[in-house]
């Protein structure tokens, strides 16, 4: 891994749901162009962590820094206040999010799903947005589905459209929240192939996943979480095969069966 200044830094992130502590002070730095896979048992806080980055979950303590700038809050003297909602929306544009359940807009065609935000948020012309969207749909192999509605597509195709929709806003970092967990087994491969091709083109990505073989294949770094904490991090080889942590060894012996 290179030693460039991190593009994203999570510092001492804490998050509570009622009395349940979901994140207990998480620190992670992400180098530009790197692929980080976050793994761990369910309930370990990995999805919550990903969602705090683009503000889908409000954090209770700590902070997220993007290129050295604090995201979501601003310092006023001895305390912080949340940024204005407009500023928060602008900050979100640095991140593209791909959800476990795709969350395509069911009332809009594939093309409209991809172009809605570029037109209404970035102010692109309809024509240029459609041209760019067509290129992205080609990249995920779905240009022939552009006039279909999401419910006419398979799960794998919907997720690939969702990736195109995220890419259309030209985010600096892509966040994947278990992108293949809701898919039938035979559809997982096509989605992972798209993600891998993005990784090879140098996109900065954070991927929460259960696909250990995939993580070992594409990740520059694997972060292992358990009970709201990072318990292990390093190269895939290091973390998956030579973990020093008892909890991590248990986890990997159960998921890396083959």
């Amino acid at each position, binding site marked *: 891994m290179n030693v460039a200044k991190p593009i994203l830094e999570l510092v001492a992130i804490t998050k509570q749901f009622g009395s349940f502590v979901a994140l207990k002070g998480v620190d992670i730095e992400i180098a530009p162009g790197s692929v980080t896979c976050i793994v761990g048992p369910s309930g370990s806080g990995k999805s919550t962590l990903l969602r705090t980055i*683009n*503000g*889908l979950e409000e954090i209770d303590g700590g902070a997220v820094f993007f290129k050295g700038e604090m995201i979501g809050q601003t310092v006023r003297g001895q305390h912080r206040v949340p940024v204005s*909602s407009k500023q928060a*929306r*602008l900050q*979100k*544009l640095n*991140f*593209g*999010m791909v*959800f476990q*359940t795709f*969350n*395509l*807009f*069911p*009332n*809009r*065609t594939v093309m409209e799903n991809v172009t*809605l*935000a570029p037109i*209404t*948020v970035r102010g692109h012309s309809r024509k240029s947005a459609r041209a760019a969207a067509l290129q992205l749909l080609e*990249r*995920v*192999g779905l240009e*022939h*589905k552009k006039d279909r*509605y*999401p*419910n*006419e597509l398979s799960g794998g*195709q919907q997720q690939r459209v969702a990736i195109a*929709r*995220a890419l259309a*806003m030209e985010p600096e970092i892509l966040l994947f929240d278990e992108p293949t967990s809701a898919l039938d087994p035979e559809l*997982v*491969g*096509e989605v*992972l*192939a*798209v993600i*891998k*091709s993005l990784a090879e083109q140098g996109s900065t990505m954070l991927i929460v996943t259960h*696909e250990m*073989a*995939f993580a070992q*294949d*594409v990740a520059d770094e694997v972060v292992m979480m358990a009970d709201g904490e990072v318990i292990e991090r390093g190269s895939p080889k290091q973390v998956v095969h030579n973990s020093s942590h008892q909890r991590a060894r248990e986890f990997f012996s159960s998921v890396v069966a083959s």
Partner: protein
Amino acid sequence: MKTPTERTAQRLTDKGEIRAEALLPIKPRPSIAKWASIVLAVYVFFVGLEFFVFNENWNWPLVFEYLFGQRILQGLLNTITLTLITTLLGLFIGILVAWAKLSPLAVLRKLAAMYIWVIRATPLLVLLLMIFFLAALVPSLGIGIPFGPSLFEVPTNEVISRFTAAVLGLSLYLGGKSAEVFRSGIIAVDRGQFEACRAVGLSPLTTYTRVIGPQSIRVITPPMANEIITMFKNTSLVSVIGYTELLTTAKLIYATNFQTIPLLTVAVIWYLTLTSIAMYGQSLLEKRFGRGFDRRTDKEEQREPTEKVETRTSTIADGDIR
């Protein structure tokens, strides 16, 4: 005669027999209920024929004479005008109240809840009379500081005519009723949709007008059609404050010529017509906003070769990385 168990036992050994049975065509089960329902329909038809057509008390010639009469048409126009204006205004109030009730600000939520509570509790008749006789409560309306000076004032009776009282009463009523329908439409939309809108940075306005709103319309169309069709008939309540719409006109006419049933029939025929138009509008809305939820069944769509899709898909998913 074999017992069922014996038959089963024999079948298990006799593959040929069960195969022959398996290939028999399936036909609908003979149904007595089906024939009974047809007999019932015929019976109802003749009862209806006797009751409506061969019943001189309806006085159909008179019904048709009044159906397009000058006064009835004026009343009908008043009903349509009142319904359109109060529906537009009422739905606007409803959206505002629903928005307030979903607001993160507790004060707005409480205000909206109180409004809905009062409207639900108050009979429309009472609401209309209260507004019409508002002058008895406040002789003049204006903007100013309570208990303090007033910046602008007009006598209440100049503002509250029969028409404005009717419009105000009906739209405040529809506002309270439709607010809950709007709110149900919003909360019926999947949370993931809101998250996806936030993730791509859509403004709240775009989120509601392009993504959440259209999805809600699909859900709220049937209950909202109920409310609006009820409005046609609720407009007849404004007769208590002397505004002459369709039903009041019919009442005024039969008060002088005593043809009660024929004139009520005239009104009912027009209400049926208006309701049919509204229901047609409802089915158009459902079709328009059902897109993306119901699978398309056009023949053309079905004929699309699926193989082409498969090969294209495999070109990008060819790197088997699992």
